[in-house]
């Protein structure tokens, strides 16, 4: 059995969905942040797959996924700092207590 493009796309989809469902179900803020990164990973796998299978010359998808990695890291750094500040106030990592700015 041969591996086609759709297998990779399906893996990307599953990662994205698990990430998005997880961000809605999980109550720990740190876990939510990790799951956001997993969502980004799913998106990146989609990009790279399309770039490999449909575009053999320019590889735009590779470069775009590189940018995504950078933006994801930046976003995670800011989010963790905000989480740290909020934790000092609330003394809890339950996302339901983070309901005001």
């Amino acid at each position: 059995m041969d591996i086609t493009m759709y297998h990779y796309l399906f893996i990307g989809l599953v990662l994205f969905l698990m990430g998005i469902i997880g961000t809605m179900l999980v109550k720990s803020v740190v876990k939510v942040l990790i799951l956001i990164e997993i969502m980004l990973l799913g998106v990146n796998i989609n990009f790279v797959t399309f770039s490999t299978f449909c575009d053999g010359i320019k590889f735009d998808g590779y470069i775009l996924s590189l940018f995504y990695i950078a933006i994801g890291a930046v976003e995670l750094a800011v989010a963790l700092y905000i989480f740290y500040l909020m934790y000092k106030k609330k003394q809890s990592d339950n996302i339901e207590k983070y309901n005001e700015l």
Partner: protein
Amino acid sequence: MINNPIIFYIASFLIIMSTFGVLFSKNVIYSLLSAIVVFFTGAIFFYILGSEYNAIIQAAVYGLAVPIIIGVSIMFTSLKKDTYQEKMIHYILIIASGIFILAFVYLLMMSMAMNPNTFNIREITQVNFFDVMSAFAKGIFINYVWAFELISLLLTIVIVGITVIKRRGV
């Protein structure tokens, strides 16, 4: 790219299982460890898709740097277990995600059925390493140079911004 079904299925199994691990482990540290596995397996996916550079970056940033800062923040906050409650909305979510999967699969199938050449799938699956590298160079420094500069600016702004917030002592 490496067209080997065994590697693909092992990697898929690993990535999905460790994602479940992230979701369902009670302790945050264990879910962080599972997340490291997820990120490394993502790097393996990039590698077998033929993009070594992306794989290296993924392994370096997500395999090492991101877990370290998450771990540091977990250590700083010394998390304890909280009691969490479930809600009705979860069932709606699961239904919605089912619809989402169905919709996506349906879209894929339909696009395949409509015109087999829609996605313009290449016959040659072998990618030359040097081609990829030159494409990277062209992309970063010629085609997407503004996006690249913007990303660098963003990183600088984050550094400056965090320093400023720290100085103001929020």
